[in-house]
Each structure stands twice: as C-alpha cells, then as structure tokens.
C-alpha cells in the first residue's frame, strides 16, 4: 500500500512536471505568436492569418462565422457582441444555436491549433501533415472573408461547403473540418472549453472557456496559470498581513 502510494505520488509529480513544462512551452510560443503578429498583419486579407473563428449555425438558413482575432491577444474577460451578426443571419433564437471555435497558425515552424469542446480533452495532433489536414478547412472558412480581423463576420448559407454547418457538422467532403479533426460545437447559452494544441502529439492545454450569453455576448475567461495562482496567493497573504498589522498597533 505504501509502495502504491509512493508510485502514485511519483506519477503525479511526473504529470505535474510535464504539465508545467508544456505550459512554459506554450507561454513561450504564445509570446512568439504575439511577436509574429506584427508581421502577419501586413499580409494580404485573402490569406488566412491565424485568427480564431467562432461559428454559429441553426443548420438551416444562414450561419454566422465571426473573427475573434489572434489567440495570442486573448485576455480574460474579453468579449464580443454578436448582435449585429445574429441579426444579419436572421437568427430567431440564438439559445438553440450550435457554436464553437477553431483556428490554427504556423509560428516560425511551430504548428498551433485551437479548438473548443463541450468539456472533453480534444484529440492530439501528432505531426505537421495531420495539422495540414485541419489547416485546409480552416483556410477554406477564412476564404469567405474579404477582410480578416477581430469583429469581421460572414453569413454563408448553411448549405454552402464552407459554412459552419458543413465544415464542422454535416459536410461529406473528407477535407471538411469535422472529418479531419473534431466537431468543436456546443449548444446554446453555455460555456465551451478552449484548448490550444501543438502538432507534436503533446497533450492539449486548456486555455480557458468561451461562453455565450443571452445578450449575444461571447466572453473569454482564461484559466489562471500556476504562476498566476501563486501570485494570487502571495497577494492574498500580504493583504491578510496588512489587515492584521494595524490591529496589532492598536493594541
């Protein structure tokens, strides 16, 4: 029993170490992505620039595909108002829409992808050729935008090959997103887990959640990193000390 506990502790430590390393790597890569952003923005609009897309579909009529901007610039509490896009698509009841987020980017040879799930950890991406198979549909989705950038949106027919409905749910082409990777959608006013992935078979990293609210806002909430939690703990400790010290003086 003691031996089992010891092995379990060792395994837990290994996992924690791996997770920390992965997070460190991701942080470095996110910084690299941010640095690369300035270069990428000078590219022509027709070329996919790695922006994240949130897509909505009622599986009939028109879909909405909305550009959230670069993953590297996300911050906790950031939100986007989808009201105009929903009106343009003629959505009567957004609470029943299927929606999700995807995107990918090659940053100096490191191939990233991002995807939402209903809570489960998404599939790993083993290598660059597999990353390529989900980059193809993502670029196809992007090809509908005449201009890419946060706040831009398109409203394709749900029957069109590059609509959200076809790419992520029902399309039959082997090159469409849900056939090359996973269906990233959740349903209605809820939260979706948002993961980042690297095409090296490493474990997906939970970056936070996106939520859709009844006032048509999509909001990102980041998962605090261990370092942030440590700082939070330290800050809390100092606050407690600061609260206690005057009371000592008053004695």
């Amino acid at each position: 029993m003691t031996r089992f506990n010891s092995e379990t502790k060792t395994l837990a430590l290994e996992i924690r170490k791996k997770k920390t390393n992965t997070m460190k790597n991701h942080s470095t890569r996110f910084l690299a992505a941010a640095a690369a952003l300035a270069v990428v923005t000078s590219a022509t609009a027709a070329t996919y620039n790695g922006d994240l897309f949130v897509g909505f579909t009622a599986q009939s009529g028109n879909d909405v595909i909305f550009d959230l901007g670069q993953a590297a610039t996300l911050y906790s509490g950031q939100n986007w108002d989808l009201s105009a896009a929903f009106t343009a698509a003629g959505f009567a009841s957004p609470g029943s829409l299927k929606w999700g987020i995807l995107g990918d980017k090659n940053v100096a040879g490191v191939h990233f992808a991002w995807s939402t799930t209903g809570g489960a950890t998404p599939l790993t991406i083993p290598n660059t050729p597999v990353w390529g198979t989900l980059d193809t549909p993502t670029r196809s989705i992007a090809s509908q935008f005449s201009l890419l950038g946060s706040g831009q949106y398109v409203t394709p027919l749900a029957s069109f090959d590059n609509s959200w409905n076809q790419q992520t749910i029902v399309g039959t082409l082997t090159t469409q997103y849900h056939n090359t990777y996973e269906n990233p959608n959740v349903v209605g006013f809820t939260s979706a887990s948002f993961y980042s992935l690297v095409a090296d078979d490493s474990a997906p990293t939970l970056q936070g959640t996106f939520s859709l609210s009844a006032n048509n806002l999509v909001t990102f909430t980041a998962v605090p990193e261990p370092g942030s939690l440590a700082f939070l703990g330290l800050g809390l400790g100092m606050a407690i000390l600061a609260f206690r010290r005057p009371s000592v003086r008053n004695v």
Partner: protein
Amino acid sequence: MNLKKSLIAGALSLGLVSFADAATVYMTGSTAMRSTVYATLNAAGAVFDAAPTFAGRDGSSAGGCNYMTFVGNIGGVSTTVKCHWSGSEGGVKDVATGQLETFLADSTSGYVSTAPVAAELDPTAHAADLGMADNSQAFSRTTTPVLATGAKVGIITFTWVRNPSTLWTGSNNITDQQIRQALGGFAKLSLITGVPTDNSYVYVSGRDNLSGTRVNALGTSGFGIFTTPNQIELNASGDMIDLSGVGDYAGDYGFSSGGTLAGTLGVDTATKADNFNGGTGFSVISYLGRSDANKAIGLGAIELTLNGVPQSVANVKEGRYNYWGTEYIYQKNSAGSDAVTVYNKLANTATGINNYCDGSNAIKLGDMHATRTGPTVDPVHN
C-alpha cells in the same frame, strides 16, 4: 461649293454610320478550350462567312494565344470577335456579373507569341458577351446571377503530370487521396512512392481560382471546389516563388494560364530549397488541359495515371478516366443581337464548336459513352 461640302458631310456620316454598325462581340473563359474555339472561329463558314482575319498574342501557336481577334463578315455584317481567355471560372464570373476584361486593340494585327505590349491592348476594358466554361455554372464559384442561356459544346480533357524530380522513383500513378493531401501542402513523397524514407514533400503547382481546369481537379479528386488549396508556383529555374512577398510559398495561388504553368514543369527540383516545409528537394504534380500537358511533357514532365487509369480518349469516352469536364458556352443575360448571332453559331452542335473538337484536346458530345452532370459527380456509362 455647298454641294461639295454636302457630299463630304454625307460621305463622312456614311463612314460613321458604317463604323457604328461594325459589331464587336467580346468573348472570354476557358484557356483549355481556346484552341478548339480558335479552330471554330477560324474555319470558313462555321461562324464567319469566309475565313476571318486573325490577330493573336501570348501563345506558342496561333490557336494557343490568350488574346485573339477575328474580323470578318457574318451574314454580310462586318463583325469582330475579340477573345481574352482568362479561365473558365473567370469567364462565368465575367459573363454573369459584367466584370470587365482587357482585349486587343482594333489596330493590333498578325500573330506574335509574346504577351501584348500596352499599345496593342484596347485601353478600354469591356464586359464579355460570351464565356466558355469547363463545367456548368451550377458547379462553378459564381452560381448567381443565373445565366439563362448556355449550351454544351463538347468534352474537355485534362490530365495530371509530375515534374522530373529525381527524388520520385517508382510508380507514376496518383490517387485521389494522394491528390487531396498534396493540395493541402503537406503530402510526404513516401505517401505516393511507398518508400518510407522518402521524407521530402510533394506539392501541387496549379491554376488560380478563375480556372475550370482547377475546378474539375478539385471536384473530381474530392478535395472540394470551394476548399482552399496550398499550391506553390515555380519560376523557370524550378525555384519556389515567394507568392506574396512575405515568405508565403504556398497558398491559394496559381497560374492564370495553363500554357504558362506547363512551361515551369520541366525542371528537376531534387536539389531545390523547400521553402514551405523546409529542407532540400521536393517534387511537383500538376493538372493541365491535354494540349498544355503535351507542352509540359515536351519539356521533361512525366504524365501520371490517375487511380491506376491512364488518360486516353477511349478511357474518357467510356468513363474509366474521370478527370474531364463538359464544356459549356454561356451568353450574358440581355446580350445584343450580334452576340446572340455568334452564340447561336458557336453553340450549334452540328456546325459549331462541337464539330471542331479534335478528338484529343476535346471530344465531340456524340462520341461520348459516359455522362456526368458536374465535376463532383462520378461519370456513368450511358
């Protein structure tokens, strides 16, 4: 004196009237079908009353020119037909939406193989009256506004080739699955050769999104007409071109002309830098119309069988080989009477374009034993 002035004025006005009556019909679309349309327009009695006067630019032969002008009489009326072959998807878009194209100037004469200089082009761009398309509008990227008048005028044949990369050993065959991966930009050569150590990449160098040859390639392979490919372009030395000037070596790019594309496929790229996936050495596959493929093969390219079936007229006719398209001619909605006259002559199955299909680059409709409704649909035997 007054009489003389009146006569001069009368003569001038007659000249002006005569000039105004000279009809010009503008045509665009499929580069793969340009040699067949050339043969039709150039033949005495097919469209023009007698063999017309021809001017051409930008082609290794008169029938291969991207710019053509034909001048003659149709039913006794002086008529000019100007063609700028910009790709069949471009043709459908131009004719359906009224987008303007550039044509040769009236003063340009004779045949010159090089591209027209500025002075040889009409400074005014024109909307196209007629368009040739390698697939029906329903399977094009411009499905609306719907063109009310169109007709089938033949079968256009395509094929796949590869460049003479010495990295590629073994079978010269390609499958739809391999094509789909190569179109995405990340297909390892080992996927095609079966040799596990063939770690270099195979890219597609192809046409731009105004091309019907491309629509048919993307459709028949199952990649998807609207799916965005990662295609590269090579220069004459076989080096990858930085397509947007920011280190972008693959993307939704491609050549506007099959002839130009064919001219880049004769170089061994085994020692060239792979600027997209890194490393040294890569191979290239490409899709071309039959005549452009012949040009590429003449330069050193190697023809590929598709899914184990070689491209041949017999295999196309029987539906065994599936990379081909039904050729259409479209007339713009509310076209003028001169354009309608030319359309009717070209669309006539017995005496128009269909009659001039040579049995190699294009096949007559009546010779086919297989039918398909579009590039995403498998051919069925009649």
